[in-house]
């Protein structure tokens, strides 16, 4: 036994995990040392989430050894020493922020814990003090994720595993988060960052391992880490997944969608004047509370607004019914109890039904098989449960089911949140193909890189108003576009409005 066992961090040796016939991890070996930030990159289904799940005790490995600080890892004993900040927050939505921090660490065995006192410092540090007594489900996603981070900090864990932690944070919030990671690393904690964003991996990590097919393919150390290197390792042996191409759109064409004096019922946005051209992909950008998210939802009728909405020759709710809508949150865009195939044809089902009301299962199956092919969904069979697909493929199913019914306009929120690079490029290409068929795409984005990769034009919202509109083609790289967007958004005060994760009464 070494003299200083407390310093060696986490060591994983020959980790194997299979799900039925699928090999998720095929003998993975890696080490995370205290004081450094270890990045893990990898395409869909490479096994990244499986590593996280094993460390989070959500599943068990088939074989392989994990040691923590030189001692064999015991799920029971070490659970509290590893804190996991998830891609989708795993919180108690009905409890307050402060209570969420206390669950599992209640100060008294008998009394209901009283609030925030125990964690005031942590709450202040992450800027949640003013929300301490708000229930989690009343907060927007960005703040929910901050709560998740606060929970990890409150546990005073040795190992911090960040699983796509900032996928829904704004640039500023992400920057804050990375500062925090660096300071934790400075305190000698083990930090692991699982991310799809190569820029962040290369900027913030001391070491990056690229995981492909359940094994570590390459390990890159500081001077060698850059986006191109990681990207090259990721796409080796894959068909070229280049950035979605862009063509300049003709402003002269008559608009497909026109909003006039478009005002939210509760004034989340007001007096919006907006034209979207046929074939255009429009990005809507703005922090939570700016009204951007609500604006995109209102186009599909899932937020109530008044004013004039005209889509092609239709207007009002007749027009809104021609808009397909896909949320950013997969837990409310997919049906867990249905198969992949059923999820694909759920929106089309009424047209696959005989006049007598019988759902034609074989026609539905053929329809689902066809959209699976068109939209490049990777699944063993169409009858596979939807939850067994990787995040990227689930997202493709969500988007495919909306596109397959051929809406005139598709409205999306964060279309590639928590999705790997290869799937991202495929989703952008699908959206582009779709808009080229005489439709249009409007998407609410939280990542500037997404705007750059996928959109023709971006509008920036601040406090319910459009403060600017930029043609993406005028920018040569994502950074300069991001700067331009940031300068338009200006010194936008922190948000206090909350996005409602559920559709509104009677708005459907």
């Amino acid at each position, binding site marked *: 036994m070494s003299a200083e066992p407390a310093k060696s961090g986490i060591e994983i040796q020959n980790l194997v995990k299979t*799900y*039925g016939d699928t090999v998720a991890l095929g003998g993975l070996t890696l080490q995370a040392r205290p004081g450094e930030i270890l990045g893990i990159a990898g395409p869909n289904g490479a096994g990244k989430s499986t590593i996280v799940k094993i460390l989070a005790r959500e*599943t068990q490995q088939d074989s392989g050894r994990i040691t923590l600080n030189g001692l064999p890892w015991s799920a029971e004993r070490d659970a509290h020493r590893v804190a996991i900040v998830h891609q989708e927050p795993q919180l108690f939505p009905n409890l307050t922020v402060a209570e969420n921090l206390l669950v599992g660490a209640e100060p008294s065995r008998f009394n209901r814990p009283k609030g925030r006192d125990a964690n005031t410092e942590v709450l202040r540090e992450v800027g949640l003090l003013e929300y301490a007594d708000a229930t989690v489900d009343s907060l927007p996603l960005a703040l929910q994720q901050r709560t998740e981070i606060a929970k990890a900090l409150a546990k005073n864990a040795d190992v911090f595993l960040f699983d796509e932690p900032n996928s829904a944070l704004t640039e500023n919030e992400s920057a804050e988060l990375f500062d925090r990671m660096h300071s934790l690393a400075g305190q000698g904690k083990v930090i692991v960052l699982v991310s799809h964003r190569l820029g962040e991996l290369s900027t913030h990590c001391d070491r990056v391992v690229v995981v492909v097919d359940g094994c570590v393919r390459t390990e890159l150390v500081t001077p060698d880490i850059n986006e191109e290197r990681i990207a090259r390792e990721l796409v080796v042996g894959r068909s070229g997944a280049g950035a979605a191409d862009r063509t300049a759109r003709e402003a002269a064409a008559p608009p497909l969608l026109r909003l006039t004096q478009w005002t939210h019922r509760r004034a989340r946005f007001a007096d919006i004047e907006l034209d979207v051209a046929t074939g255009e992909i429009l990005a809507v950008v703005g922090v939570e509370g700016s009204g951007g998210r609500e604006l995109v939802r209102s186009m599909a009728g*899932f937020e109530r607004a008044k004013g004039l909405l005209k889509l092609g020759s239709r207007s009002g709710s007749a027009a809104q*019914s021609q808009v397909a*809508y*896909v*949320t950013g949150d997969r*837990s*409310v*865009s*997919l*049906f*867990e*109890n*249905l*198969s992949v195939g*059923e999820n694909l044809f*759920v*929106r089309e*089902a*009424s047209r*696959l*039904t005989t006049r007598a*009301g*019988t*759902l034609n299962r074989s026609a539905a*199956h*053929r*329809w689902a*098989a*066809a*959209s699976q*092919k*068109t939209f490049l969904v990777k699944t*063993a*069979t*169409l*009858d*596979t449960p939807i*939850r067994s697909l990787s995040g990227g493929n689930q997202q493709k199913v969500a988007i495919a*089911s909306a*596109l*397959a019914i*051929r809406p*005139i306009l598709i409205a999306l929120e964060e279309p590639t949140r928590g999705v790997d690079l290869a799937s991202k490029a495929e989703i952008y290409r699908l959206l582009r*193909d*779709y808009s*080229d*068929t*005489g*439709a249009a795409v409007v998407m609410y984005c939280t990542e500037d890189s997404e705007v750059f990769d996928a959109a023709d034009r971006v509008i920036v919202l601040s406090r319910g108003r459009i403060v600017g509109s930029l043609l993406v083609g005028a920018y040569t790289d994502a950074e300069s576009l991001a700067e331009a967007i940031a300068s338009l958004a200006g010194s936008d005060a922190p948000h206090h409005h909350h996005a409602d*994760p*559920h*559709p509104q*009464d009677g708005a*459907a």
Partner: protein
Amino acid sequence: MSSEPAAKVKQAVAQTSPGAEKGRGQTFLREFGRTAGLIGTILVIMAIFAIASGGLFLQPENLLGLLRYMSTLAIVGLGLTAVLIVGEIDLSFGAVYGLSAMLTAVAWISWGWNIAAAIGLALLVAICVGLFNGFFTTVAKIPSFIATLGASTLVFGFTLLVSGSGTFSPMSGGREVDAGQISWFLGLSNQDLPFGLPMGAIWMAVIALGFWYIISKSLFGFRLKAIGGNAVAAQFARIPVRRYKIWAFVICALAAAVAGILTFSFIGSVQPDSGAGLLFPSFAAVVIGGASLSGGRGTVLGTLLGCLLLAILNNGLALMAAGAFLQQIFIGVVTIAAVVLDQATQRWRKER
């Protein structure tokens, strides 16, 4: 709008591979495993009762009596299955069962209505209770547990009011009832069929077939399942969630009413508290049959088997003179065991 993806879909439809059939077999096997387990359990319990009762259990008269009890449970249980699939709960069907029987009796015997009109009134009132449940659940947004609990009390109160808490029978009413109507009504559920088959079994078979079509074959059933799986996603997919939920409540109330009227026809009299004891065995049967209280799951075959199991327990324990208390305890244990087992296999499947 003619579009390129549409063309792509059509093109791909033409070249769909037959390999996609494989997965359907897997799903079938899983469902089959569940059903086989339930059938196995039923056979084992039947064997135990057959031995313990010295063959009495297997006597034809006994099995036919069991079938009759099962038919009431199944008609009610199938309605409940529809509500559970859509992700709601109904606690009022027992009261609706009682009210519809009582209303038929009172309108027919006390008010002198024609029996067909009396039945029509009872069914209409049941539909109204279903609409009431649906309205308060989906429009007023009260949890269905509370809404239907309220409805249950309300409906039961209404039954007492209408009946003056008396027992009604067409043969011994104060008013003279037309003998033709009596024989027609009793014939609904109490007439001799070949092999002494109870009429209720025929009703059960017809109704189960209808439910099987609705739940497994129709668009309606598919959407019920989708809504039960994720109501928010269903709304985003532009499925009319409210309308479907209201329909489910109406179907459940109607099924309870039919069962109530048929039981009245079989017994020949109706008491104000009939249907009160139906709530628990129905839930137990449906849950044993694989329906989930959290929605999105449930089948006709499962519910029928669950009802059969409950009927067997009910009958077998009574045969062995186990006493009402012991019966309750035993049925409670079996229900919990069935759900625990089901949850365990579910988890095991997810893990795999």
